[in-house]
């Protein structure tokens, strides 16, 4: 049964995407199919999370072939948690997109949007569950190809340019990923990640270390870590809001996830921590400086996204249980928060007709409810307590506080500074968008489409739930981090046969 | 018997390979596109056919049918390729006209009735 639970997040969306593509005449059918399959998948993910939290890593080999022979899908606490959160966000964003209708898409969107979106979620699901490096590559490709399509569905010339930047950069990273897989296979004779972890220890230091950083670079591109981030702020903001939201929420996180997974499972080495620390500091600061420099709301949010990848790298750089707990928490929280912010931005842009802060200053502010919907995730992003962002950041700082040495000190200082500057960036948005006054028009009454609002409320509510349920989430994250630091349970679940 | 077969096969293959090489020389040396096309679409095909027959003879048995099939298909597709490319080459002035001893097609085209529909 585990096998079915594990494969459902991949298989069901693929099946429905195919149906949706074949039946693309009827938009209602597509919408109903999409929402129901994502709901079903989300339920499945929750069950997986419960099982993983209760019994440890859940693994199964597809086709019943034992692990290195067949492809293993694995849901440990980390992947099940991220899967659950991601699917919840994906569902909400789909509802938002349905509410938004085709306004932002081109002529052919009804045909293309739903299948591409479902394949994207299937890819994300497979990426989180993959226990096999090449399967992870395929998952990335599903996800990314769908994202290329979604990004270029629009009509404008700016959009196609942005699509090219994004596509070509991602493609380069994919090809490097493939190269890295080839090299890993050449060195070890396996692509199963658990198996790779065992065999990589027998490879000479130089080979293992080089492959380790090569994969780090590959995933760093997907995760938009500095200096491999340039593509992101140039491309994400040009997409229609739901697309931007889902990209921002999921794609970079899959990159981070892959980084965490491979570094802990395959290359549990300590020669990359300094590199990761430097990169984390750069990511934090470069991203947030970029955000401060922007005038476009969505670009600003994109730079903030880059910056906060640095927090996730923070914990990975520490490479201990506490740090990884922080990374897990931060990743889960950030998925929700960043999506929420982009959705609110979508509502704002739709109501005001511009994303430029300078122009928004002179437009009527959205109604208070939208302001509230912005406020919560914005505070969470800045790590103001008692939001989810605070919890995650606190855990990271605490983990950093346990360490000594100037690199970690610099890292902590950068993290604190980034928090403050994020807050500054958010207040800039607030000042331009949400404050009314005698020198500007009164707030609007209408808040846009009901579905769009409901989806946004749902995501923001999820963020609040993460904060409220920080205890449970903390337990899961900590256990997940323990699994990461000591992956024997994972290996046993995968190579010890699974449940066939 | 099988020794003879092998010898014949190898000789055929050698001949085919030689033809291919000479065709390559032709492709390199001939002056214009259409002439080079001769070497490419013809001599090469012949070389391939010889190699195929040689291999079929050499191997015998179950390996032979697909090899012959390759030959048959090549015999159909290579000339078509040659014709299409040659036609386009002439129509796009890729023929070195000054090297032609006879150009009856050019003569025909320069006559007034070139474009007129033929007698029914």
């Amino acid at each position: 049964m585990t096998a079915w639970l594990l494969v459902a997040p991949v298989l069901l969306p693929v099946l429905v995407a195919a149906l949706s593509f074949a039946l693309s005449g009827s938009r209602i059918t597509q919408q109903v199919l999409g929402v129901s399959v994502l709901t079903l998948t989300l339920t499945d993910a929750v069950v997986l999370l419960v099982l993983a939290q209760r019994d440890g890593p859940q693994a199964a080999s597809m086709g019943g072939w034992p692990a290195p022979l067949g492809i293993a899908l694995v849901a440990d606490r980390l992947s099940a948690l991220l899967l659950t959160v991601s699917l919840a966000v994906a569902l909400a964003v789909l509802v938002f997109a349905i509410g938004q209708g085709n306004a932002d898409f081109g002529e052919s969107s009804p045909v293309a949007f739903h299948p591409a979106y479902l394949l994207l979620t299937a890819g994300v699901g497979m990426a989180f569950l993959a226990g096999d490096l090449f399967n992870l590559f395929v998952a990335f490709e599903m996800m990314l190809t769908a994202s290329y399509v979604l990004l270029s569905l629009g009509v404008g010339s700016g959009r196609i340019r942005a699509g090219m930047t994004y596509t070509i950069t991602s493609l380069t990273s994919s090809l490097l990923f493939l190269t890295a897989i080839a090299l890993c296979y050449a060195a070890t004779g396996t692509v199963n990640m658990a198996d790779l972890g065992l065999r990589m220890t027998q490879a000479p230091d130089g080979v293992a270390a080089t492959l380790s950083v090569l994969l780090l670079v590959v995933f760093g591109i997907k995760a938009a870590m500095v200096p491999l981030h340039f593509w992101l702020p140039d491309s994400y903001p040009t997409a229609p809001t739901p697309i931007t939201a889902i990209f921002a929420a999921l794609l970079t996180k899959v990159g981070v996830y892959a980084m965490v997974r491979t570094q802990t499972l395959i290359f549990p080495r300590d020669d990359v921590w300094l590199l990761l620390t430097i990169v984390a500091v750069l990511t934090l600061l470069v991203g947030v400086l970029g955000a401060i420099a922007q005038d476009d709301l969505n670009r600003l949010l994109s730079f903030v996204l880059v910056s906060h990848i640095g927090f996730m790298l923070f914990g990975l750089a520490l490479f201990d249980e506490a740090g990884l707990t922080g990374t897990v928490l931060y990743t889960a929280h950030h998925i929700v928060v960043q999506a929420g912010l982009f959705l609110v931005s979508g509502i704002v842009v739709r109501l005001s007709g511009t994303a430029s802060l300078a122009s928004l200053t002179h437009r009527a502010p959205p109604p208070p409810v939208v302001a509230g919907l912005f406020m919560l995730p914005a505070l969470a992003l800045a790590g103001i307590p008692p939001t989810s962002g605070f919890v995650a950041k606190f855990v990271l700082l605490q983990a950093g506080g346990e360490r000594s040495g100037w690199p970690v000190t610099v890292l902590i200082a950068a993290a604190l500074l980034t928090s403050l500057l994020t807050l500054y960036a958010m207040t800039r948005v607030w000042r331009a968008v949400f404050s009314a006054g005698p020198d500007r028009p009164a707030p609007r009454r209408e808040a846009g489409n009901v579905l769009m609002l409901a989806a946004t409320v749902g995501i923001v509510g999820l963020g609040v739930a993460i904060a409220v349920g920080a205890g449970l989430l903390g337990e899961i994250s900590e256990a997940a981090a323990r699994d990461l630091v000591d992956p024997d349970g994972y290996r046993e679940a995968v190579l010890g046969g699974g449940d066939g | 018997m099988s020794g003879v077969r092998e010898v014949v096969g190898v000789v055929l293959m050698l001949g085919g390979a030689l033809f291919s090489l000479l065709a390559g020389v032709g492709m390199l040396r001939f002056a214009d596109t259409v002439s080079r096309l001769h070497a490419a679409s013809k001599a090469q095909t012949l070389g391939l056919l010889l190699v195929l027959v040689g291999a079929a003879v050499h191997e015998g048995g179950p390996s032979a049918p697909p090899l012959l099939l390759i030959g048959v298909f090549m015999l159909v597709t290579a000339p078509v390729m040659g014709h299409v490319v040659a036609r386009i080459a002439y129509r796009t002035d890729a023929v070195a006209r000054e090297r032609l001893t006879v150009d009856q097609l050019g003569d025909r085209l320069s006559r007034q009735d070139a474009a007129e529909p033929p007698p029914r």
Partner: protein
Amino acid sequence: MRADPGDVHEPRPDTPASRGSVRRRPWRYLPPVLWLTLLWAVLWGTFTVPTLIAGAVVAAGTQAAFGLPPRGAERRHRLPRLRGVVQLPALIGYLLVDLVVSSVVVAREAVRSGPRTRSGIVEVELRARSDAQIATVALLTLVAPGSLVLEIDRERRLLYVHALPLRGAADAEGRRAAVARIERRLLAMSRTAKKEGPA
């Protein structure tokens, strides 16, 4: 080129209707089905009953799904005469000799003259009348090295052959004769040639 307004086509045959006529005469399918079944068997390399049945099924399926409508203008499609079948090896033999000889000639040109090799374009008048015959003549002409069919004038039944090497008018006549020889042997295999009048 649908987009070109200057292009006027012959009236397009009503494809579904003609397909209906095909359905009334399924034996039209027989030759292609046979040839495809043979191909199937050759591909598998076995001529057992299951293979042949499977091949027939695949071939018939292919024809049923993607079979082309009848060719239209010329109604008949007749099998070659028995004498023609007998003549086939002779034709092949002739072609093979021709092939080898002309190959040697071209190869020698390549090595010896190279850029100095002269060529020419010869107009060849055909006796063949049907599309299939003309095409076959062209194809066979094309197989031999040294002769490339540049243009086919279907209506006037002319081939324009680029010949290499071609040093003068005498060579041109020789080329014409060579094509004619092939054509004669080909036509001899089919009795349709003589009966066919101008379309």
